[in-house]
């Protein structure tokens, strides 16, 4: 089993295929440990009140098996006025320090989208 880190900087409102990354995270999680980290506009999918196709897909990912861990960048959330209380339950709010720790100490492959 490998440790994948997927860094999502795009949102599905501006980039239709941002949800491809959620699909990839779900598929990888069948055999690997996956951390999906939302940064920049990537955090825009995190609001619990969103109700569209990509959000359903994202929500399923957050609630998926124990192999997927979804994090969101605290600064990106604050920059966009998104309170942690608005987020889909299960998202962990962290920052780039934690991202770097994960990247350097517990990641086998990293992809940025």
């Amino acid at each position, binding site marked *: 089993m490998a440790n994948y880190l997927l*860094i999502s*900087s*795009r949102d599905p409102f501006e*980039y239709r295929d941002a949800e491809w990354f959620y699909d990839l995270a779900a598929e990888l999680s069948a055999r690997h440990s996956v951390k999906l980290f939302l*940064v*920049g*506009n990537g955090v825009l999918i995190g609001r619990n009140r969103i109700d569209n196709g990509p959000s359903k897909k994202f929500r399923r990912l957050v609630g998926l098996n124990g192999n997927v861990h979804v994090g969101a960048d605290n*600064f990106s959330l604050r920059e966009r006025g998104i309170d942690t209380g608005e987020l889909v339950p299960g998202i962990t709010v962290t920052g*780039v*320090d934690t*991202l*770097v*720790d994960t*990247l*350097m100490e517990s*990641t086998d492959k*990293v992809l*940025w*989208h």
Partner: protein
Amino acid sequence: MSDAPAIRKKTLTVALMDGPYVSNNPTTAFRIVDAALRKGYNVNVFAYESAVELSIAKQQPHQNPVKQRTVEEADHPTTKRLVENLFDSSRRNGAKLDWIACGLCVDERGSFDQIEGVRRGGPGDFLDWARQSDQTLVIATK
């Protein structure tokens, strides 16, 4: 004198394609590099395409007439200043920051005047770095 072997510092290589003022990617990249340097990791940055413009020496801060701020009041660091800050951070934290601007990208943009510390290179340098690093992060352009 200690006989303990020196702990090898881990190295992160980052490839970046976006120039200043067009996307969030450079700022996020700077944050990641900054965090890595503070933690003592060595970092290589390969600036490809428009990313070579991040470190142009002649960038100048400007006033903000909409907010009626002078240059000093605006306190708006240029990206080259941020890159300089990262070099400063690397020295403070005993970490190595190596920054290559893709030479052909520099040529076609006329971005010859780069800040001190940035050197010219090519794809082969990136591959060497990727092979020697503990982790390589390619920051996709949009």
